[in-house]
């Protein structure tokens, strides 16, 4: 796989500062009846959008936005990778939220979507700036862990392992795991339930 280093993401933003947004809401289960991830983008937040015409994902001025500002415990619930896949295919390239559910965070990492944490106060400032100017260009810099836009600047956080993988382009975890095949085979011999409980 080609190395794809992700050091910064620059794009306009879209804000959805609700807490406990679960992955059923991001992509309802009926859209998981598929054998590829193609076509999931148009169904991101489908049911929320149907029930709320003013939902940010419905609004013309936010189409094309690549940076999503979210609330606390973003992506909780189901492990479905279809959720970040649908956001990515809608156009999201980075997510800034108060916190993330763990499986969702891991899935974002697998897809090369930076998911960084910020304080609620900073997210509210960013959301206000996006609301005021939907064309505002926002920069998420992973090396400095800073988010900047005209008049807004704040620090974000992310575990070193996830940050380093994105910056160095090593977020193709499969390739790295495969390179340790010999170690894995040797390790299996130390596992009691693989050796008749004699290990």
């Amino acid at each position, binding site marked *: 796989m080609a190395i794809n280093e992700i050091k910064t993401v620059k794009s306009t933003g879209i804000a959805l500062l*609700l*807490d*406990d947004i*679960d992955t*059923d*809401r991001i992509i*309802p*289960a*009926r859209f*998981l*009846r*598929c*054998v*590829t991830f193609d076509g999931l983008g148009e169904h991101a937040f489908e*049911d*929320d959008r*149907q*029930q709320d015409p003013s939902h940010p994902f419905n609004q013309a001025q936010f189409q094309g936005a690549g940076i999503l500002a979210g609330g*606390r*415990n973003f992506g*909780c*619930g*189901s*492990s*479905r*990778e*279809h959720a970040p896949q649908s956001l990515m295919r809608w156009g999201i390239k980075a997510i800034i939220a108060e*916190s*993330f*559910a*763990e*499986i969702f965070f*891991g*899935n974002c990492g*697998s*897809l090369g979507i930076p998911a960084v944490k910020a304080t*609620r106060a900073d997210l509210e400032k960013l959301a206000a700036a996006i609301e005021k100017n939907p064309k505002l260009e926002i920069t998420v810099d992973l090396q400095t862990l800073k988010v900047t836009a005209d008049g807004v600047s704040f620090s974000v956080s992310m*575990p*070193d*392992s996830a940050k*380093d*993988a994105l910056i160095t382009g090593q977020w193709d*975890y*499969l390739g790295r*795991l*495969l390179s*340790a*095949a010999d*170690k*894995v085979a040797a*390790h*299996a011999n*130390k*596992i*009691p*339930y*693989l050796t*008749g*409980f*004699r290990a």
Partner: protein
Amino acid sequence: MSDKRNLFNKVWNLHSVQDLSGGQTQLFIGLHLIHEVTSPQAFEILRERKLKVAFPDRTVATVDHIVPTASQARPFLDGLAEQMMSAIEKNCKDFGVTLLDLKDNRQGIVHIVGPEQGLTQPGMTIVCGDSHTSTHGAFGSIAIGIGTSNVAEVLATQTMFLNRPKVRQVVVNGELAPGVYAKDVILYIIQKLGVQGGVGYAYEFAGTTFDAMSMEERMTVCNMSIEGGARCGYINPDQKTVDYLKGRPFSPQGADFDRASAWWLSLASGDDAQFDDVVTFDAADIEPTVTWGITPAQSVGVSQPLPKVSEVAADEQKLIKEALEFMGMMEGQPIKGTKIDVAFIGSCTNGRISDLREAARIAEGHRVSPHVKAIVVPGSQVVRKQAMEEGLHLIFEAAGFEWREAGCSMCLAMNPDKLKGREVCASSSNRNFKGRQGSPTGRTLLMSPAMVAVAAIEGCVTDIREFVGATV
């Protein structure tokens, strides 16, 4: 020298192939369970990269999410479901993976099949592309839900990268009052610690309340760890764990079983084991619990009123208001008496034989309220057969419940079993998220299967302790 490591750290260390800079571990996975929804794209990755399944003997597939529970004749009426079924059949055949399909009498919800076949054992690392993989922690394993990219990684290498979580011991001591079940215990814990309280932690459930639970009750508790934000929850293995596993098809046999049992029991956290955090609850404080909102933490004891917006923390108020509006409920109102339209008994949380026995015991001699549609979906074909041998299906049918085939069904409504419009469902499942049960505006009230049975009969949320005719 005593080993102060808790079970989680003992099992983690055993499976650590290597530690990487940045804090990650490459972890060997002892059992990989797969199903039809989160695996097709993973197998495609293997095809694109010309890879094999590294340890096919450590990989077992079944079908559950999209399976119809009324008629299972092939091809399915739903062409997309049929396509997914064909895909897992082809993938398992091409890659040499055992598939427990509809024609196999071991088929069922993946988290029910693993334990009942003896695939799930103490001391294992277990993953599945499904968040409720935490269920398997009931045996003292590290069991975590993963995404589809991870499924591909584990298929191809039998390993994945993980950051070691901290371990929080969640202690509950004391006897549960009549009418209070394992489901109420975990709903209570989530209510107290919050839906994100467990992020970054594995939960060890300990204390006399869990000691007294059956293996099936322990599975109910661990199943919903993820609803509290903990990707993994576990209970230390004890003699009940050993007894449960004896004689199961995939359990060790003969002398192997004796060696296995000794090892399993040795893994349990000792009295002086260390934890990153400990919280303690009293079983006497737990009453039959019902969710009223759109997250599993938004619950109350059945005798209690809903919270008032002004009484919750400022940063919680927006979410509470959103939940009240979606549910069509008023702050401060009682939950008891809430009219229901549908009753669902089943799911990986509460679709086991003990759940069906208890629901049948309550339903016996009663009738489902005329305005309620009630369905019972056994968690596996094994559970279904056992229930029918005991005549439970006759009790349910006489009471007006529909008796279905095994699958996930209305827990997430990927099959034809769905709520319609704004229907309210009393459900023994695990998630009350907006739209979770198949209608974008459908509403879910989570509770124990016994409480679902009572609600079905009374037509509204009812305190099981006040239900005439039930000896709780």
